[in-house]
């Protein structure tokens, strides 16, 4: 049986191997990965992809454990891609998200993969989009993507999913700042977590703050309006609310065509992104492997050549 067939049958080991392939930095693997993905795309599943972003420690993994166990109880199949912020010091990393997902990870209907972020622009790692395609073809109902969202990577993460949610903690003024910077443009829902114990009151206040800031933001006419929700992942409260909201957003967006439009916009985004990546890589390897450039740059420094001429020359060499 081919890898594609095994994935379509939902074989766990095959899915795992395929994700390794699409995440690999090895040249041969990249080629194989392209072939695999182009085949899988012809066999799409029916999954809805939901992104969960937010600062480290706000409780994304714990929320996924909590919300996830709620969904698997309703017999949904759940694929989870957790991008773990990894240590930069040596390049190795400790992937600890699964210690927060000990209950759902036991369940036969889940597939949980952690990936070290490896410093690739914060949140989304190389290969996450492809990994989601694999899980989709393998028949998962929901695909959750956990990312550490900061700045630019927020946009990348948002471009991977059908519903993008921002998880925040009680009293997180920082994220409120972020609202103005445009995260709301991408986030469909705001989940204020840790509404329990001593933090309960503060969490409700934070939720109210978000709610009122949302008034100032014009939701587009066709897409579902943005929602703020209050949950406790530890006490598993507010999960009904999240489920209904997600289902509502999906059905509204499907009706209005926004759902499909987003997916095609995202495809366009990724095509451009890939092209940009390729060019960047080409430039970088070119510069690394070509000693001539050093000499050419030197000639500018010694005044033998003008800067603009040299740039043109280098570009010509690189792009041919």
């Amino acid at each position: 049986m081919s890898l594609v067939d095994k994935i379509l049958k939902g074989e766990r080991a095959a899915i795992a191997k395929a994700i390794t392939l699409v995440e690999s930095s090895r040249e041969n693997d990249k080629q194989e990965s392209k072939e695999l993905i182009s085949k899988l795309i012809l066999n799409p599943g029916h999954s809805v992809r939901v992104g969960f972003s937010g600062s480290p420690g706000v409780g994304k993994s714990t929320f996924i454990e909590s919300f996830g166990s709620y969904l698997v109880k309703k017999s949904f199949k759940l694929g989870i891609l957790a991008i773990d912020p990894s240590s930069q010091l040596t390049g190795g990393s400790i992937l600890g998200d699964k210690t927060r997902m000990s209950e759902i990870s036991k369940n036969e209907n889940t597939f949980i993969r952690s990936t070290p972020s490896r410093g690739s622009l914060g949140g989304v790692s190389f290969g996450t989009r492809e990994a989601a395609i694999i899980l989709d073809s393998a028949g998962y109902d929901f695909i959750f993507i956990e990312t550490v969202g900061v700045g630019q990577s927020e946009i990348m993460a948002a471009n991977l999913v059908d519903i993008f949610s921002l998880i925040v903690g009680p009293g997180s003024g920082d994220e409120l700042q972020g609202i103005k910077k445009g995260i709301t443009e991408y986030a469909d829902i705001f989940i204020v977590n840790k509404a329990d114990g001593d933090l309960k009151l503060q969490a409700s206040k934070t939720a109210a703050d978000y709610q009122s800031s949302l008034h100032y933001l014009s939701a587009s006419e066709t897409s579902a309006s943005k929602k703020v929700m209050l949950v406790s992942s530890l006490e598993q409260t507010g999960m009904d609310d999240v489920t209904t909201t997600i289902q509502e957003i999906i059905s509204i967006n499907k009706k209005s065509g926004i759902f499909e439009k987003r997916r095609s916009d995202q495809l366009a985004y990724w095509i451009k992104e890939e092209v940009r990546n390729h060019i960047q890589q080409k430039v970088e390897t070119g510069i690394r492997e070509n000693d001539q450039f050093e000499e050419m740059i030197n000639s500018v420094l010694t005044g033998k050549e003008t800067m603009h001429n040299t740039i043109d020359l280098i570009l010509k060499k690189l792009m041919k």
Partner: protein
Amino acid sequence: MTKNDKEQENLSNWKKSFEKETKKSDAEDFYFSTDEEIDIKPLYTKEDLNNLSFVEPNSLPGSSPFTRGPKASMYTNRPWTIRQYAGFSTAEESNTFYKKNLESGQKGLSVAFDLPTHRGYDSDDELVKGDVGKAGVAIDTVEDMKILFKDIPLDQMSVSMTMNGAVLPILASFIVAGEEQHVGRELLSGTIQNDILKEFMVRNTYIYPPEPSMKIVADIIEFTSREMPKFNSISISGYHMQEAGADNVLELAYTLADGIEYVRAALSKGLDIDEFAPRLSFFFAIGTDFFMEIAKLRAARTLWSKIMKDFGAKKEKSLILRTHCQTSGVSLTEKDPYNNIVRTSYEALSAILGGTQSLHTNSFDEAIALPTDESARIARNTQLILQNETGVTKTVDPLAGSFFIEKLTDEISKKSWDLIEEIESLGGMTKAVKAGIPKLKIEESATKKQAKVDSGDRVVVGVNKFKNPKEPKIDVRVIDNDKVREDQINKINKVKSIRDENLVNESLLKLTNAAKENKNLLEFTIEAMKHRATVGEASKALEEVFGRHFATSLSVSGVYGKHFDKNEDFKNVSKKIDSFGKKHGRRPRVLVVKMGQDGHDRGAKIVATSFADLGFDVDMGPLFQTPKDVAKDAIENDVHAIGVSTLAAGHKTLIPELIDNLKNIDPKSKIIVFVGGIIPEQDYEFLYNNNISAIFGPGSNIIESAEKVIELIIKKNN
């Protein structure tokens, strides 16, 4: 020349001589920074006693602040209690062992329960298949408890029980067993550990989340203070913290901060502080830092009396910190194990000079398995020799007045006090524990210690220096897990067949309701146990209301690597790992796991963080996984290897199950499996025959282990 000038002159002469002898320009070069970051000087003088913050050098034993001992007469009147912690397999076997020990000079009992009991599971629960009777004695019902104390008169014998998670059904069973021996609860003497905060921190046998767990602690303090006047309601324990890697300041500060939290919990029940304070007891570890340990016990008493005064305690008895001590297990080695007898002797002496009320000394086979009759005998004799042959009992607090000891006592007090205030500023220990801060600090300290040993900065005789070329062969206690489990299941079935099911169900329902209504739970548990509910059933009845706690754990990062900044071996292994990554398009990935009820996570956490520092991608599994969970996790993350850390002797059941489960999901799996932890040598062959690629026992150098692992991975993936 005044007397003072003369003294100054003498001191500067000493300095000159010192510098001449040592050929160093400054005596400060000889300052030694301890794990606690206290500078130990080559010489202490009278000057060091100026400006002490906590210690009053003129105080006397038996009165506040009790630095010199809780009693005026100390060991001169009655020596400390020799109290050896023990328990294994069935109640029948443990009972025989206890009785033998009591005949040979042991004075008090201390029960070690097995892990299923600790975590509130019955022996017939599928989840605990590998753990029954392995690391302690299995107790499922009152019937087992009665067998455990058969022919041991409970009105005369003081019994200490290390129980925290399943504290309600176990204490209740003990009370019922007493009653059925015709000993009323008011006559029972001993201690229940009942210290849940350190379970969340380091010991890992919790059942319910922190808040309901704290309520249970307070219930027990309330109940015992009213109905069991001779019973210590809690043993506030730092011991496990040090064993998990805490330095002495962390141990002392966190223990006292725990104590503060328990006092508050009891006060919130409306109890008067003097009503319960005299029955609070403590428990510390005594490691190899000889003088520091002595200073720690003196500091503990000093600080506690201050804390209790601040709480408004009026009775003198309420200000006293009474403690049990245990020599350090983690200082004992698998290599050249007879050295451990010597280590334990020094530690025991340290505990005695520090003024402990009772003591456990470890057996020399500590790092191999539960003690044999023979090794337990030597451990006990270590104390009998101290008591009978050395004269240490003849003088109270003999080191008082030593410039060094007094100064050190003050320094450790000061550092600990600062840390206690830090915890208080976070809102107390329950909050700090929930945020995971103490656990992380202890793990950081443990990682530093490992780095010191692995780099050779700290010598461990027989491990990283002075190795014995011919390791001795020693006898090992073997426990037949299948047989114990079968026996326990038979006993449970027998109890279930003759008990009155209606009474059981009714009393369990009452227990659940009591939990909902926030009533004191101990009396309700006693009722259920009397009707022969099992430990598991009672625990479940409460779980319905409280839920089960799942820990989330943080990881330290960079601590190990930092120590090896310029180390060539470290760099070489790192390079191998990097180049594998380049060649294969991703870094080598290792899943480090704990399976079954084994909560020893120190080794696993240290190895995980160190491996990550070396360049591996490390997946850290949660505690209490089943082999099936691990296999799923490993396959989904497509790891190159699984490293199983196993210390509680479940390996012979759990490892083959893991291998089977891997094959079930992926018959062609190339995942390598290796094992670390406590593996007696006679099990090596069994493991190798079960597809285990490597075994790393206690004392393994992590850099060397990492090298072996990366080489195995390279070989397998070529």
